[in-house]
């Protein structure tokens, strides 16, 4: 078999769309260089695919599976990202959002990309103690900042009380908004402690710390985290439990095997 045919069988150049061919033409990749490029791309894609099989609590051990630092970028910036108490020097395209840097370069895929336009809150992370949207934050602006993502909340393999409360009160269905909800809720605990006000705070002029937030206050202050499944009631309950420190039981409970059997036979 001629080398060309062998390659065609592997990559199937005929299957490239017109657009893909235009892009490759524009890159000046013709003939053998195009083939070489496509081979590398498919190898790289496989590498990224394979990396999803490695899971770990810390990103350090997954780093080796991620792509090497790309060099010769058009608008290259260098930034030391301090995430979950670890510092990682990165070379990035200036356009890279913090969200993409976390997910694509540090393997921290706990932080989710929802709308990517600052409308849903799924990408919420805590920067220097404040909740922020990582999709609208350029990674280039994060030098020297302390970033905490959902992966950094557990301490010594024990979940943060807010994570435990979300589980206990079933504060989610699909779970996609959950990392953002939890980061947002944890930052809100601090805001309440500091006595920060919201639009529904009755009296702005009297300032006191250690606020006890009503449900109305919690809903207003958590409005930046959209939950498509509508788990809002349970999210509020989860927040209230950690906020008040009371060990409240949910108003529902998981059925026992006995109850299940009874229901089936009824």
């Amino acid at each position, binding site marked *: 078999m001629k080398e060309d045919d062998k390659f065609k069988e592997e990559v199937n150049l005929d299957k490239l769309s017109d657009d893909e061919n235009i892009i490759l033409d524009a890159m000046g990749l013709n003939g053998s260089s195009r083939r070489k490029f496509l081979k590398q791309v498919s190898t790289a894609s496989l590498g990224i695919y394979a990396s999803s099989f490695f899971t770990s609590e810390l990103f350090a051990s997954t780093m080796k599976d991620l792509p090497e630092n790309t060099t010769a970028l058009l608008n290259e910036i260098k930034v030391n990202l301090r995430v979950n108490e670890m510092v990682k020097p990165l070379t990035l395209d200036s356009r890279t959002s913090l969200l993409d840097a976390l997910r694509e370069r540090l393997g921290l895929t706990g932080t989710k990309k929802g709308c990517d336009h600052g409308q849903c809150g799924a990408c919420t992370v805590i920067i220097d103690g404040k909740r922020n949207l990582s999709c*609208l934050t350029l990674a280039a602006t994060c030098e020297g900042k302390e970033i905490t993502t959902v992966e950094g909340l557990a301490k010594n393999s024990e979940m943060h009380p807010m994570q435990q409360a979300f589980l206990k009160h079933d504060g989610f269905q699909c779970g996609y908004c959950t990392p953002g909800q939890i980061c947002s809720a944890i930052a809100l605990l601090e805001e309440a402690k500091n006595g920060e006000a919201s639009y529904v705070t009755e009296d702005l*002029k009297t300032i006191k710390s250690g606020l006890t937030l009503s449900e109305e206050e919690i809903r207003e202050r958590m409005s*930046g985290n959209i939950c498509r499944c509508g788990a809002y009631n349970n999210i509020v309950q989860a927040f209230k439990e950690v906020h008040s420190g009371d060990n409240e039981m949910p108003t529902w409970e998981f059925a026992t095997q006995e109850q299940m059997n009874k229901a089936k036979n009824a």
Partner: protein
Amino acid sequence: MRPFKYTGAQNKDQALQAFTATSHYLGGGTNLVDLMKEDVERPDQLIDINNLDYKKITSNDKGGLTLGAMLSNSETANHPEVRTNYPLLSMAMLSAATAQIRNMASNGGNLLQRTRCPYFFEVSMPCNKREPGSGCGALNGMNALHAIFGYSDSCIATNPSDMCVALAAIGATVEVQQTDGSSRMIVFTDLHRLPGDRPEKDTTLMQGELITAIHLPKPEFSDHYYYLKIRERSSYAFALVSVAAGLQVKSGVITKVGLAMGGVAHIPWKLTKAEGFLAGKKPTSENFKAAAALEMKDAKPFEANTYKVEMGKNAIVRALTQAYEREV
């Protein structure tokens, strides 16, 4: 997003020197980065001004406060002096966006927010603001969210800011640095401009000018204030109509009025007629209604936003009533 050069400025001189005609200063980025993703804003260079030392709130020689341009919206709204002396400003700022966005957004950036007109955001649509000469899609299109005052055939978009509505009511001054190193003061109501035939220009700022501070006058509305924001959902939405109302009442007579409206014009809309009418009068519901009617009779709505006239009238009366009846 198109490629751009990122320049981190450590002080104002570096920022001003780096400026070119195709640059943008980068503050919180909550509006700019989004617009770059939408391909609406296409700067060649972003000059990061987040490290500039304009992050303080200080007393000024007018007996008021000066707000640093690079302080975040949440730090400003929650500053004890702002909450105590300018609760109208705090309330308006806290009604805006979400906790996350308020943590990121800077005061200077808030003043320069661009419109939320859907035709401005959608690059396949005509928009004179985005693409001068391409036409106004909203004029004969979907204009339920658009202006009822001060628009032109070129543009009927509205200014989205809540903070700016309160600043128009309070009466602020904006300090800017020019590229030649000098600085100038702009009366707040002169900062934003009506669209006319140049809707691409939102403000009277000259190229490269950098907002460094917002000066507030002596506090006048710390007792009677209200920011009413009417929107399509109760939180995290832009105003259909909003009203910032501040009153000073002495011996049952109104001695000072600050009134401005959001969601109705290309600029934060100062209600000068209503202010003039109410000064020296009693804070009664008849007077509030008469002031609102006087202001709204000049409104020229479009097919889909006629509701804003009646809503605006009621919003003015309600904001004034809430402000007056607030327990001191």
